[in-house]
């Protein structure tokens, strides 16, 4: 295999970045849409159906037939998708209001910080172990070169993920401060306290995989968690997954922990004063953060690119089985999408916590549980691996 020159290396990395961005920007709008629909069905209504292609779309046509038969259109799952285009157009074209007393510079930079720290996390996420695909030989400049399954599967990938994710707090705090208004400030302060608190159990729950796999590299960790653990590795994996998931909900400010933007208390929280694409950046960053948390959950606990979660892959399916014995990016993507569905599912199921309950959940329950889980993982590592 030829070693790439620096130029080729950079081009390949840019291609990888492009692929990840495409993946993210396909998944995020679909999540927004799915949230409307799934939440609708969870609450016994149809979700968004108004903006539909009507006469030309297949489902529109079928639904028209169903109305004629006097039935509820069960095939309305895809109606409302054109509304996404309208949404994006609205975000881009709306007037960008900056409050007169706002701190212009910080007001401008806060959404950017939020967005960048959300996207950049993907640098250390490895979607498939080894080579993802190889450029065909006729391709200019990079023909015949392999593209690995992660942009930069570095030795300290987990630290990169945690570090950059913790920089994401600034976006929210600074947005709350720069708006120079009471509700955003309250939302920003709340979120700073909440996110800093939940970072602790989140990091500890991710330490259990580190202990079990003796690595900080995302690809190595997901591989060993999926196929390299003994039977007893199941217990700390499942416990750690539940703790991680709870903390992930809090870190991304989703229900039941959406304190920073609790509508009925704080108007819209930290982004009350934002409009236009600046608000759009916060909106996108929230969904990208959800995707990041989903990707980490999938990679560390749900077996990553392998089929079965929680290390069952290594116990049940030998690598010799075709297709399901081998890693595929498609399994990873499906797991991420399932986790995103879980987000919506939980949002439709559990009501919001009170603020003091949020804090006591973090400090009184999750941290001791995460520590116990770490101890369990260490015992498994000591006696069973």
């Amino acid at each position: 295999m030829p070693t790439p020159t620096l130029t080729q290396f950079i081009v390949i990395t840019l291609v990888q970045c492009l692929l990840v961005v495409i993946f993210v920007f396909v998944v995020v709008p679909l999540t927004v849409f799915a949230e409307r629909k799934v939440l609708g069905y969870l609450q016994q209504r149809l979700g968004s159906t108004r903006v539909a292609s009507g006469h030309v779309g297949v489902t529109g046509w079928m639904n028209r037939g169903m109305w004629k038969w006097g039935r509820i259109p069960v095939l309305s799952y895809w109606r409302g998708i054109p509304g996404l285009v309208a949404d994006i157009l609205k975000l881009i074209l709306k007037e960008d209001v900056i409050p007169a007393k706002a701190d212009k510079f910080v007001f401008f930079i806060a959404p950017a910080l939020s967005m960048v720290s959300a996207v950049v996390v993907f640098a250390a996420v490895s979607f498939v172990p080894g080579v993802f695909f190889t450029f065909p030989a006729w391709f200019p400049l990079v023909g015949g070169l392999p593209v690995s399954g992660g942009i930069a599967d570095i030795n300290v990938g987990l630290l990169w993920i945690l570090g950059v994710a913790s920089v994401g707090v600034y976006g929210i705090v600074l947005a709350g401060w720069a708006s120079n208004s009471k509700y955003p400030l309250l939302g920003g302060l709340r979120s700073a306290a909440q996110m800093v608190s939940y970072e602790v159990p989140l990091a500890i729950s991710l330490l259990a995989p580190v202990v079990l796999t003796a690595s900080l590299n995302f690809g190595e960790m997901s591989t060993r968690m999926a196929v390299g653990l003994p039977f007893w590795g199941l217990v700390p994996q499942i416990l750690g997954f539940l703790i991680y998931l709870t903390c992930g909900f809090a870190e991304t400010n989703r229900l039941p922990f959406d304190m920073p933007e609790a509508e009925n208390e704080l108007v819209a929280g930290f982004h009350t004063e934002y409009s236009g694409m600046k608000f759009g950046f916060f909106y996108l960053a929230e969904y990208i953060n959800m995707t990041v948390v989903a990707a980490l959950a999938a990679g560390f606990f749900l077996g990553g690119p392998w089929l079965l979660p929680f290390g069952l892959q290594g116990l049940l399916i030998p690598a010799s089985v075709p297709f399901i014995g081998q890693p595929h990016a498609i399994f990873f993507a499906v797991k991420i999408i399932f986790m995103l569905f879980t987000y919506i599912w939980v949002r439709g199921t559990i009501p919001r916590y009170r603020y003091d309950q949020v804090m006591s959940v973090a400090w009184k329950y999750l941290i001791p549980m995460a520590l116990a889980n770490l101890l369990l993982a260490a015992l498994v590592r000591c006696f069973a691996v």
Partner: protein
Amino acid sequence: MEHLLETIGRNMFAIFGVMTLCGAAFMVASRSAVHSVLGFLFAMLCIAGCFLSLEAEFLGMAQILVYAGGIVVLFLFVVMLVEMSKKREKEVFQLQSRYAVVAVLVGAAVFVGVFRKVIFGAASPEALVLRPELAQGLNVANQNAQAVSRSLFADFLLPFEILSVILLVALVGAVVLAKTERV
């Protein structure tokens, strides 16, 4: 193209160094405390970049995680709550300026004295390693988390533990001080 990229790659440390200095200068020069914190954040991230360009990935990530993600957030938290009266703060800055010049001069003199050899002396032919035998069996370029942990938890365990006890004492002391003030 190739040549240009390689030159940039070789001078990454210098680039990040200059960016760090810019961030630090912005921190000192800006009148708003929150802007200062932003400059500080930028400087901290660029220092992480400096570590990365020196192939010390673990230190770089620890820099981001601890400073950018933890300490500067606390700074921001305090500054946001303190910065309610902008006027008085300006006076404080003006009062300090005379002493600040003296402090900067003293600091610069001490800095030059300590780092005279580093700045003006000849570059050492090979990288300085405190105890090269610690890195045995490890590919330090790829495994510097392992290398750091080996020196922390095997060879310098006692100083490390003493340091953490000192930190704990400071923490408890801060809690005690804050509590007595309130009661």
